[in-house]
């Protein structure tokens, strides 16, 4: 009975995996790199590389905050942390604008953040780049495809992944007994182990990332519930949903002070930031100065370190103080909603995006993502390995297609990412369409690896493409040093974020060189057989 049940499950596992396998591989690669979306954008803006955190950083941030507060009533200052090396100041302006029905209302005009050097306080104007945002958007919206269609494509791939995970659990009966089993053999068994090991080791992560991915796409995949209640007014639905996220927060008490603008001084601001009830000064990640029409001025302090997974986007923990009385008037401690449904939803979404994760936890998420890449990659190779003998007897087009697509997708995406990074350094800073050129370079490189795959013997093409990828990744730190560094000492004086990038490029080159050497051995063994 069990065997009979497992047979169709194996079939389902194979086909739900292989049909969308290439897309899943690309989604996993771009999604995993999205854990470092901000860092990738920083790396792709060399103008930001000289900013290093120093003793002056806090003072500079205060000065910039006060200066921005002269013009704006809502100033957000983000201090450097393990993920950014600059001070970001965002000053929101309120403009009166006419609405359709003629009434005047306050409309918030979004102003992009200004970035300052954390040591000198100089304004940094970074070059335009798609940066990490392109990879991030690609992993759920693909590129240049209508958003709804893209969401459906990615949604179907995600659902297939979920099916593959569940069927994988069913067909792999010895999950706990074989948890440490890995045999590095060049046969189906070896590839099977290489597929099962990352799958079992990161099983909770894989279930979480796939299920939460579906939840994130819910408005595209299951719009009917909202439509039945709100009709076509999706905004109303979103607005109501948004209020549910914070319905558990107490309203801030109204400050007693009636202070004027001139009272907003550095001393007063320091008193708030060093307040005994506030967070440790070293843990201050962001502060928001809000002036309410000369009635009161409040400072909301948000810590660097999140206290729970519910802390993401605008739902982070914070303490708000009145600037003059120095009284604590509000405190947010996520989860900020009373609704269990909303909290479950936000826990999944937060886990998917890992906004709460500091650099250590983020690294574990990244590793889990890498395991996901290995899982989908080895799954695709396994399909080929299992059918190799059969294909020798009778050539099949399906085998040929999967083999070539495997090559073009797997080595192609790494070549494309390396080319994307290199293009960023070579495309002129003043180039008007440099963002588009970077993205074009990514896709052209990827397309070439598909073309190369189809016109060359598969094993040789694997070796060549992997060697190209090795050369590209190893050249990246050198290109970066040549173009960005003013002096060699910058190699170690720069922020550690950029040092990690160089380490990553070298590690990638080593890993790809290792795979290339395995392929090389295979080619030699094949040649010997022929002789």
């Amino acid at each position, binding site marked *: 009975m069990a065997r009979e049940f497992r047979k169709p499950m194996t079939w389902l596992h194979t086909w739900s995996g292989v049909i969308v396998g290439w897309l899943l591989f690309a989604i996993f690669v771009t999604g995993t790199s999205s854990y470092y979306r901000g860092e990738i954008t920083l790396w792709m803006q060399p103008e930001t590389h000289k900013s290093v955190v120093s003793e002056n950083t806090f003072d500079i941030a205060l000065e910039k905050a006060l200066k921005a507060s002269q013009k704006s009533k809502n100033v957000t200052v983000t201090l450097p942390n393990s993920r950014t090396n600059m001070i970001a100041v965002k000053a929101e302006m309120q403009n009166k604008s006419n609405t359709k029905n003629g009434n005047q209302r306050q409309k918030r005009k979004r102003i992009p953040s200004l970035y300052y050097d954390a040591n000198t306080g100089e304004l940094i104007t970074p070059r335009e780049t798609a940066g990490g945002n392109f990879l991030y958007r690609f992993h759920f919206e693909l590129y240049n495809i209508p958003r709804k269609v893209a969401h459906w494509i990615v949604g179907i791939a995600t659902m297939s992944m979920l099916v593959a995970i569940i069927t994988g659990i069913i067909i792999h009966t010895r999950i706990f007994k074989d948890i440490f089993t*890995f045999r590095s053999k060049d046969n189906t068994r070896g590839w099977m182990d290489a597929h099962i090991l990352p799958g079992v080791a990161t099983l909770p992560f894989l279930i979480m990332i796939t299920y939460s991915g579906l939840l994130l796409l819910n408005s595209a995949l299951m719009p009917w519930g909202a439509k039945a209640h709100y009709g076509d007014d999706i905004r109303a639905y979103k607005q109501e949903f948004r209020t549910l996220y914070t319905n558990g927060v107490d309203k801030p008490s109204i400050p007693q002070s009636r202070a004027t603008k001139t009272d907003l001084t550095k001393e007063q601001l320091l008193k708030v930031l060093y307040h005994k009830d506030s967070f440790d000064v070293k843990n201050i990640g962001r502060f928001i100065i809000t002036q309410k029409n000369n009635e009161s001025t409040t400072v909301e302090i948000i810590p660097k370190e*999140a206290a729970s997974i519910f802390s993401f986007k605008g739902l982070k923990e914070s303490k708000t103080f009145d600037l003059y009385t120095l009284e604590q008037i509000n405190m947010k401690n996520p989860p900020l909603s009373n609704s269990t449904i909303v909290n479950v939803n936000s826990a999944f979404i937060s886990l998917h995006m890992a906004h709460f994760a500091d650099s250590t936890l983020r690294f574990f998420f990244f590793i889990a993502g890498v*395991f996901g890449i290995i899982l989908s990659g080895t799954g695709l190779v396994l399909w080929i390995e299992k059918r190799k003998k059969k294909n020798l007897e009778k050539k099949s087009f399906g085998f040929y297609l999967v083999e070539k697509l495997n090559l073009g997708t797997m080595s192609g995406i790494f070549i494309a990412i390396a080319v994307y990074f290199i293009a960023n350094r070579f495309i002129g800073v003043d180039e008007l369409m440099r963002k588009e050129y970077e993205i074009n370079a990514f896709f052209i490189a990827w397309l070439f690896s598909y073309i190369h795959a189809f016109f060359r013997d598969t094993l040789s093409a694997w070796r060549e493409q992997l060697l190209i990828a090795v050369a590209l990744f190893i050249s990246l730190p050198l290109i970066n040093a040549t173009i960005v560094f003013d002096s060699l000492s910058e190699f170690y004086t720069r922020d550690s974020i950029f040092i990690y990038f160089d380490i990553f490029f070298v590690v990638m080159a080593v890993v790809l060189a290792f795979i290339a050497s395995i392929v090389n051995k295979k080619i030699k063994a094949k040649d010997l057989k022929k002789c």
Partner: protein
Amino acid sequence: MLISIYLIYLAFVMICLGMDKHYKSVMTIKENKTLKKIFKTLGILLLTITFFILMYNEGISLGITYWIGIAAPAITLIAMILNYKAKLLPLISVVFFIVLCIIKYI
């Protein structure tokens, strides 16, 4: 955090030593049922303890996330050692401990 990472790794080492095939590939001493049971129990106990330590230190939700996040590379590392250099597992575990101590005090 580094201590938790090591304890989770150590817990999985113990659990793998409590398994027949891995015990044989790592240990030079004769198979001993009681010893295997002790390893297995210690491993599970250590995993449970680290689960609560992480929840206590990082908060419930972050603690669980860390625990799952650390477990994946720990399992893979042990699987790799067992495949390539099984006999060196105890030695590598000691070296790993020393490396983490050095990182901690740098």
